[in-house]
C-alpha cells in the first residue's frame, strides 16, 4: 500500500478520503486554496500544501500546482475525489508522468468515456443497450438520421455532462433551432460543437451500477443505485438498492455494466448510468470514471469502503474481493445538503456558517466538510454535507433520514435543508413513485409556495424574544463566529432566568 496519498480535492469528499487513509495508516496530504486555509479538510490531514488563489482554475484545477504539491509532500499517489480534475485525462496523465499512481482509471479510459458519443459507441460494441439515437456530421445530416426515431427527442452535446447543453424537442418544428442552440452551447461550454440526438424515454428513472475493475479485463459490480430524485439533472437524494429493481432486472443491468467495464479493461471504481423505462427496459446513458458523490449508500448496503477498494486496486492492480463477497443488506438513502436558497430559485449561497450541527444517531452517517464558524466560499460547488441513513428496509431508512434532516442545523448561510425535509416527507418519495423529472414537474411548485409562506408566529416570537434577551449585539454575528463561538442569546445574558426582567 502507498505510504502517503495526496487528496486533490476539498470539502466533504476530501475529509471522507482522509478518514479512510487514517484507518489504513496511510499519511494524507491535503491541498488548499487561499479561501480554504482554515477549512476542515485541511485540519484533518497529516500534511497540507497551499495551491494558490481562491479561484478553482488557480488552485484545485491547477495541474502544475497539484503535481508540485504531490512531489513536495512525498505523496506516492493522488486521489482526485469527484468534480474538479477527477475526470480530466490530462491530469491523470500528468500524475502518472510524474511517477505517481493515479487513483482512478487510465487517462485513455477517462478520455474515451468523457466523449459521450464515443462512450455510446463502446457501449453498443459491448452489447449494451443504448437509447436509439442518431449522429451526423452537420445539422442537416443529423436531422435526416434522426427521422426514424420519432418524437420527443433529446439533443445532447457530445462532450457534455450534468445536463449542460441538453434540449428536449417535442416536434419537427423545434428541431432546427434546438440543434443550432445546442451546438452553440456545446462549443462555448466544452470547446466542441458536436451534438447528437437520442429518443426521449418518458418517465424514466436514473439507475446506475457501481463497478470495480482491475485494469486487466476483470471487473465486479457493487449493486445499483437509484438516483431519480433530481433537479435540473442534479441528483438530490440517492438510494441503494433501487426500490424498483428486482433480482432479475438487477442481474440484467449489472451484466450489461460489467460487459462494458470488461470490454474497456476498466481500472478502478466507476459508475455506469442507465435510464430505466417503465417497462423495465434500460439504456446506457454514460459512464462516470470516478468516485460518485452518492457512493456512501453503496458502502452501507454492501459493507465495503469504496475509497479503500480504489486504493487497493491502484496499489496492486488486482481486485481485492470476488463478486461472491458482494451481498446486499438493507437499504440506504442519502440526501445532499447544499448552500442554496431553495425558496429563491436554488441560488447558491456563501458566507460564514456561524453555527452548524449535524446529527448523531444510530444508523445515520454524515459526510461533512463544515463545522461551526467555517466559511462557505463562493468559488466552489456549494455542497456542505451528505446525510446517509440505513435501515433493514426502505421505510426505516427514510424515517431515519427524515429525523437526521430534522436534527441538522446550518445557520449563517442558507441551506437546502427545508427542501430536503419536505422532499423526504413527500408521499411519492415514501412510495418511491418518481422519475427523473418528478421533482420539477410535480414537487417544486408546492414546495415553493410553502417556502414563500409567511414565517409562523412562533418563529417571529422566538426571534423577538431572543432579540430582547440580548442577541441584538452585533458582535455575536460574524465576529464571534470567526472565533469559533456559537453565538446565542443565552450566552450573552443570564438575565432570562430572572422572572423580573422587562
Amino acid at each position, binding site marked *: 500500500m502507498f505510504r502517503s496519498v495526496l487528496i486533490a480535492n476539498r470539502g466533504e469528499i476530501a475529509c471522507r478520503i482522509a478518514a479512510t487513509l487514517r484507518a489504513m495508516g496511510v499519511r494524507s496530504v491535503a491541498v488548499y486554496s487561499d479561501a480554504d486555509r482554515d477549512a476542515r479538510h485541511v485540519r484533518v490531514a497529516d500534511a497540507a500544501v497551499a495551491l494558490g488563489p481562491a479561484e478553482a482554475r488557480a488552485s484545485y484545477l491547477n495541474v502544475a500546482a497539484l503535481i508540485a504539491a504531490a512531489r513536495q509532500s512525498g505523496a506516492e499517489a493522488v486521489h482526485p475525489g469527484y468534480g474538479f480534475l477527477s475526470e480530466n485525462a490530462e491530469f491523470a496523465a500528468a500524475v502518472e508522468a510524474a511517477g505517481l499512481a493515479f487513483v482512478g482509471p487510465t487517462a485513455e479510459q477517462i478520455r474515451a468515456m468523457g466523449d459521450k458519443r464515443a462512450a455510446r459507441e463502446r457501449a453498443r460494441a459491448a452489447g449494451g443497450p443504448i437509447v436509439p439515437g442518431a449522429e451526423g456530421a452537420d445539422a442537416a445530416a443529423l436531422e435526416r438520421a434522426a427521422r426514424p426515431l420519432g418524437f420527443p427527442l433529446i439533443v445532447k452535446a457530445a462532450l457534455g455532462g450534468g445536463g449542460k447543453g441538453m434540449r428536449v424537442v417535442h416536434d419537427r418544428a423545434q428541431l432546427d433551432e434546438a440543434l443550432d442552440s445546442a451546438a452553440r452551447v456545446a462549443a462555448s461550454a466544452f470547446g466542441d460543437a458536436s451534438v447528437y440526438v437520442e429518443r426521449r424515454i418518458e418517465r424514466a428513472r436514473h439507475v446506475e451500477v457501481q463497478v470495480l475493475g482491475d485494469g486487466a479485463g476483470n471487473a465486479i459490480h457493487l449493486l445499483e443505485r437509484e438516483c431519480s430524485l433530481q433537479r435540473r439533472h442534479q441528483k438530490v437524494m440517492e438510494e441503494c438498492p433501487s426500490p424498483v429493481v428486482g433480482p432479475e432486472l438487477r442481474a440484467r443491468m449489472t451484466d450489461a455494466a460489467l460487459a462494458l467495464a470488461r470490454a474497456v479493461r476498466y481500472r478502478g471504481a466507476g459508475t455506469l448510468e442507465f435510464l430505466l423505462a417503465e417497462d423495465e427496459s434500460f439504456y446506457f446513458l454514460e459512464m462516470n470514471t470516478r468516485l460518485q458523490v452518492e457512493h456512501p449508500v453503496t458502502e452501507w448496503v454492501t459493507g465495503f469502503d469504496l475509497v479503500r477498494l480504489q486504493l487497493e486496486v491502484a496499489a496492486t492492480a488486482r481486485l481485492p474481493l470476488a463478486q461472491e463477497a458482494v451481498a446486499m443488506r438493507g437499504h440506504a438513502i442519502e440526501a445532499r445538503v447544499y448552500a442554496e436558497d431553495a425558496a429563491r430559485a436554488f*441560488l447558491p449561497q456563501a458566507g460564514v456558517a456561524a453555527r452548524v450541527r449535524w446529527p448523531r444517531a444510530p444508523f445515520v452517517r454524515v459526510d461533512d466538510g463544515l463545522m461551526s464558524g467555517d466559511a462557505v466560499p463562493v468559488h466552489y460547488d456549494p455542497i456542505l454535507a451528505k446525510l446517509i441513513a440505513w435501515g433493514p428496509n426502505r421505510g426505516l431508512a427514510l424515517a431515519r433520514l427524515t429525523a437526521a434532516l430534522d436534527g*441538522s442545523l446550518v445557520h449563517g448561510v442558507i441551506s437546502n435543508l427545508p427542501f430536503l425535509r419536505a422532499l423526504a416527507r413527500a408521499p411519492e418519495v415514501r412510495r418511491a413513485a418518481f422519475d427523473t423529472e418528478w421533482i420539477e414537474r410535480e414537487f417544486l411548485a408546492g414546495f415553493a409556495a410553502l417556502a414563500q409562506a409567511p414565517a409562523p408566529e412562533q418563529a417571529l416570537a422566538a426571534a423577538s424574544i431572543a432579540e430582547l434577551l440580548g442577541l441584538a449585539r452585533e458582535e455575536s*454575528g460574524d465576529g464571534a463566529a470567526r472565533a469559533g463561538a456559537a453565538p446565542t442569546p443565552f450566552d450573552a445574558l443570564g438575565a432570562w432566568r430572572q422572572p423580573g426582567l422587562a
Partner: protein
Amino acid sequence: MSTRLVWRDGDRVREVELAREADGTWRVRVEGSELVVRVEPAGRGRMRLVMDDRSVLAEITAAGERRFVQLVSPAGATDFVLDRATQRRRKQGAAGGGLEAPMPGVVTRVMVAVGDAVAAGQPLLALEAMKMEHVVRAPHAGTVRAIAARQGEMVQNGVALVELEPAPET
C-alpha cells in the same frame, strides 16, 4: 410595558409586539393574533417556547442583520431567516428590490454606467457564483444614479449594487 419589533420576512414586513408579564411569561402579538409563551432553557443556544397545548424548541443565530431561526417539534424541524428591517432596507424594498445582490458572487459584467437611462427589465450587471450566472435587471424604468460594484469584485448577498432613480410616472 411592551416593545415593538419590525422584521423583514422574505418580501413581507412583519410587526411583533411583545411584553413580559410579572409571572415571567411573554405575551407576543403578531398581526392581530396573540401567543402566550413561557420560555424555558433548553441548553446553550436553545430555548423552549412552552404554550398551552404544545411546546417547541427554538434556536436563533445572528449573522449581521439576519437572524436564522430553527423551530423543532415532534412534527419536524423548520428553518426561517428574518431580517432586522431597518429604515434603509425597507425603503429599498418598497422601491422594487432587485438591486441588491441576490447571491454572493463575483461581478462578471457591468452593463450600464452612471447617468444611463434604463428601461424596466434591462440587464444592469451579471454575477457569477459556483458555475451559475445571474443577471440583475432593472425593476422599473429610471436613471442609474450610482453603481456600487466593479467588474471582478466579490460581493456579498444583499449588498446594494445599483442605485436607480425611478423615471417620473407617465
